[in-house]
């Protein structure tokens, strides 16, 4: 090549390009069950390549603390990822996401404070050419705002999921006005900074903007119910991609722009897909305060509302199961809470050994995160052929002897099909009531995530098996063994 391009810069840029390609193919592969794992590994490899290229481009590493930072961060991340329980995955992802948002905000802050990006030309190592402009400056500020919102928003989401913050929506009066004010002020401040030339007054505004963005993150997530957190995390994830893209505009790095906006767009569409699976609109999730009213008024479906509920003891269940030719398990959030997946599989294996046809019906939004049930049942190594998705199995209930529902509630609510004014109306549900006999294992008659009454519990062919999911299953298994 002619022109003043050093071999390092050339090599680094080739590396960046390759890593962008790898990210794209990685994301593409992550979208299919068969290739998902290799897709993730490809993306991880791309990240490594991008980092190595960055080091090649920088030539020297100074200060050496950088390396310490990399090691510390990696160790913390990996240990946390290995230690976390399968059921706590969403919380963990929220924390990681917040961490990434904070990092983008810090990068932008550093660009402002130490490289004076909005004020004077930056000699970007990666481009080697002066590119001072209001665009860079605005990008710095947007990166700070979006990064900070992602950070505190993710922390609140983590708190709600892990029970450290109340999971139910906290609806401050006038919150829409407050949020709008915070948003406008932080954006206005950002614009002001860009047109302030020279030091300290600018710094004051930057700090004010940062604080406002941090508060905004809390305010936006606090009014959303705990059950909607997966959607919120996915959205915040899209934000953190956007924050990285903005940081890329700030420092003129194409890798950051491309990878960041890839994630931003992918996260957004994923959020929409998730909402669709729950039969909700994104607006409804973000501003609806779903699950708040019933908490405030009377419970949406207390024990008092039910009449004619039949219940069964473990022995009775075992007795009936002895004669059953076909059985479908329907797991729900309660199975996750009581960690009953291994027992479910044990019971399934016992029944299969007796010659009974055993299947598992997986509702797309059973549990509290998408794919929750698949992950848990996979953990308990339930054979893949026994797992069926909603539309594959929904016609099979009619011809099935018995259904065992373990800690599921909303996903088996007949009102979703029959009752027009139910909040669940329109969501596809598993038609368990069509089976000859149905058992529902849960601790009480209290409602599920949607806080509505479930008429299934009053059905003629339905028996409640009260108790913790794990304990109830243990007893049933014991009785079945003795029989």
């Amino acid at each position: 090549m002619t022109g003043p391009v050093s071999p390092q810069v050339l090599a680094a840029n080739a590396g960046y390009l390759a890593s962008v390609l790898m990210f794209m193919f990685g994301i593409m592969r992550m979208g299919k069950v068969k290739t998902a794992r290799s897709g993730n590994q490809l993306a991880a490899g791309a990240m490594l390549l991008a980092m190595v290229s960055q080091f090649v481009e920088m030539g020297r590493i100074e200060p050496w603390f950088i390396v310490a930072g990399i090691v510390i961060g990696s160790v913390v991340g990996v240990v946390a990822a290995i230690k976390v329980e399968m059921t706590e995955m969403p919380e963990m992802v929220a924390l990681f996401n917040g961490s990434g948002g904070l990092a983008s905000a810090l990068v932008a802050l550093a660009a402002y404070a130490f490289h004076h990006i909005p004020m004077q030309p930056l000699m970007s190592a990666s481009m080697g050419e002066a590119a001072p402009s209001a665009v860079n400056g605005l990008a710095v500020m947007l990166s700070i705002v979006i990064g900070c919102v992602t950070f505190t928003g993710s922390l609140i989401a983590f708190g709600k999921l892990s029970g450290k913050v109340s999971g139910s929506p906290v609806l401050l009066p006038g919150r829409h006005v407050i949020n709008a004010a915070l948003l406008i002020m932080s954006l206005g401040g950002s614009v002001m900074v860009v047109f302030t030339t020279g030091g300290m007054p600018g710094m004051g505004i930057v700090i004010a903007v940062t604080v406002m963005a941090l508060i905004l993150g809390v305010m936006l997530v606090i009014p959303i119910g705990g059950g909607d957190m997966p959607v919120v995390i996915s959205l915040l994830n899209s934000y953190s991609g956007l924050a990285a893209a903005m940081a890329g505009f700030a420092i003129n790095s194409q890798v950051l722009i491309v990878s960041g906006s890839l994630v931003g767009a992918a996260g957004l569409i994923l959020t929409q897909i998730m909402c669709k699976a729950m039969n909700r609109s994104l607006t409804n999730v973000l501003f609806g305060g779903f699950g708040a009213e019933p908490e405030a008024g009377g419970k949406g479906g207390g024990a008092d509302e039910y009449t004619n509920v039949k219940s069964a003891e473990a022995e009775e269940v075992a007795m009936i199961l002895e004669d059953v030719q076909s059985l479908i398990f329907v797991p729900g959030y309660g199975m996750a809470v009581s960690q009953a997946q291994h027992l479910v599989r044990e019971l399934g294996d016992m029944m299969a050994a007796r010659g009974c046809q055993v299947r598992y019906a997986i509702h797309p939004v059973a549990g509290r995160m998408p794919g929750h049930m698949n992950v848990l049942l996979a953990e308990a190594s339930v054979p893949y052929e026994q797992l069926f998705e909603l539309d594959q199995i929904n016609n099979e209930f009619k011809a099935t002897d018995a259904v065992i529902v373990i800690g599921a509630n909303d996903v088996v609510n007949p009102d979703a099909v029959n009752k027009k004014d139910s909040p669940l109306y329109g969501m596809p549900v598993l038609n368990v009531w069509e089976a000859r006999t149905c058992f529902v294992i849960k601790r009480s008659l209290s409602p599920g995530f949607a806080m509505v009454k479930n008429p299934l519990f009053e059905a003629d062919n339905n028996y409640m098996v009260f108790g913790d999911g794990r304990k109830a299953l243990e007893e049933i298994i014991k009785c079945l063994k003795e029989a």
Partner: protein
Amino acid sequence: MTGEVLVGFYTFILACVAGYQLITKVPPTLHTPLMSGANAISGITILGALAMTNGHGTIAATIVGCLAVIFAMVNVAGGFMVTERMLKMFGSKKK
């Protein structure tokens, strides 16, 4: 001139379209792993953290920079690891 910034808009738009197109029909099973994998990729900001810290001697810059590096690395390493763990389960079951 603003050549670089301008071109940045092209890559931004193209990447958004590509990102959108890549995730068209994802089965619900993969929503959580995909979310977490995408999250890990957003840790790409680590490059910015490295670039901003490198060769800037002041203590303040070093502290802010190292913090940025640490947080970004938590996101990257943890994100890919946790995704791998989730997906490993699907893998084992597929066999």
